[in-house]
């Protein structure tokens, strides 16, 4: 199911492209904000939850997910170099699964780890807030990577579609329409954070069992469908 060569090509492609700078810029921004807030206001649990929930989980994780998820396959399909992967006797689901593993690894490394560090800076993990948000970021990384990887295989405008989903659906609709929150990766991962954090420190609109079912279901379905899309991928000629 996992192919180390595909993984190597994917992660080198991901970290070698120009858009990879977002992967470094956003976590750096989060940590810088955290340092400034801590210096200005001191350790405060509410502020920590606001920064980690409002910026890290709601904005940074999906954006990094878009870059890593779509970047794991989209550019190769766009420029046609994916032909070198596809003209091999390697099962298409193996290619997708491997790319998912890489995308999850990159998203988690650039979102969960900085979230944990930022949490410790903000309030020293009081009420388990840092750990809770870091776990939520890691779990969200899996679902986002699967969703955006799928987008990378179905549309040439995966980055735009991903940004619309991440910013409009997750951030805007999520805050305006309560129903939309049930269908939000952010809320599903918050359900987990709620369980880990101290009572009342973190709240989610979705119950933990439903959140886990949706997380696993969406990840599995998106990965399976991406594999199917790749099996039937059409490379149009120059003509």
């Amino acid at each position, binding site marked *: 199911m996992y192919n180390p060569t595909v993984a190597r090509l994917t992660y080198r492609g991901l970290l070698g492209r120009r858009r990879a700078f977002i992967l470094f810029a956003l976590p750096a921004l989060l940590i810088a904000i955290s340092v400034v807030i801590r210096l200005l206001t001191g350790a405060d649990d509410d502020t920590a939850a606001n920064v980690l929930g409002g910026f890290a989980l709601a904005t940074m994780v999906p954006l990094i997910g878009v870059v890593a998820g779509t970047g794991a396959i989209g550019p190769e399909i766009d420029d046609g*170099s994916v032909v070198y992967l596809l003209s091999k006797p390697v099962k298409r689901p193996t290619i997708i699964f491997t790319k998912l593993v890489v995308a999850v690894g990159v998203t988690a490394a650039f979102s969960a780890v900085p979230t944990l560090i930022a949490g410790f800076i903000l309030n020293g993990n009081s009420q388990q807030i840092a750990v809770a948000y870091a776990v939520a970021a890691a779990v969200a990384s899996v679902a986002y990577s699967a969703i955006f990887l799928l987008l990378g295989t179905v549309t040439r405008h995966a980055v735009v579609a991903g940004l619309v989903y991440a910013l409009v659906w997750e951030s805007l609709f999520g805050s305006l329409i309560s129903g939309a929150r049930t269908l939000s990766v952010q809320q599903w991962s918050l359900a987990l954070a709620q369980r880990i954090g101290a009572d009342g420190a973190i709240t989610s609109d979705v119950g933990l069992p439903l959140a886990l079912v949706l997380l696993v279901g969406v990840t599995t379905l998106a990965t399976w469908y991406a594999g199917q899309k790749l099996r039937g991928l*059409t*490379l149009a000629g120059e003509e």
Partner: protein
Amino acid sequence: MSTLLIDNVSRWFGNVVAVNDVSMTVGPGVTGLLGPNGAGKSTLINMMGGFLAPSTGTVTLDGATVWRNEGVYRHIGIVPEREAMYDFLTGREFVRANAELHGLGAKEAQHALATVEMEYAQDRKIATYSKGMRQRVKMASALVHQPSVLLLDEPFNGMDPRQRMQLMELLRRMGAEGRTVLFSSHILEEVEQLAAHIEVVVAGRHAASGDFRKIRRLMTDRPHRYLVRSSDDRALAAALIADPSTAGIEVDLKEGALRVQAVDFGRFTTLLPRVARAHGIRLLTVSPSDESLESVFSYLVTA
């Protein structure tokens, strides 16, 4: 020994028919897929390589369907026309990765790089390669598993004459070894030098198939049209029409020229200056009006 069978294959994109009911068998040896730009060659090669589903018909390799069957890539090597590769890798890393995806290793990769004589630049990033070097590394990546079928889409594009000769020699050798080698080209001379057997596609249709020399003869024997201007058009017309190599002449008053249709190409080209000289007529313009490859090919369609 492998045979690709294209059976009643059509492919359309929306309302545009790119390939129209084509049937052909591509067997061991070198086959040239010839046709003008936009004729459907890449579409056909993409279908042969399993990267495009035929709208109707089937493409099979030794009986196995090519579309959605990754197993066929154990036997097929593909050299795509598109330039994009993993530019951030070195040539060696790229070919090695291709070998690994076939379950092979460094030894096979090195052998493939040696075959295309790219060892000298193997540790440079692909991004720094010239077009010809890229082409050769692509070739190495397709050869790494010693495939019995090799599909190449416009492989000579961007190659200098020396590289072109090297690649031709390599393809000839592979054909002689009994591999099925198919390459596409829109340049007659390229195909002439390399392939004894050709398949001609024009506007998505299979125009001709078979021995190159026969098809070449068909191409040169077709009626040729010339636009001729001279110091005395009517006298020239009268003198030319007396010879059987000329099938028809029209005096184009608007252009102030003769439109000559010749049936025997070789004879007409020596006749024209001879006749002009004998009658003291000065030739001002002699230009073939249908020499474009497209018109050569479209003649074949109706032949």
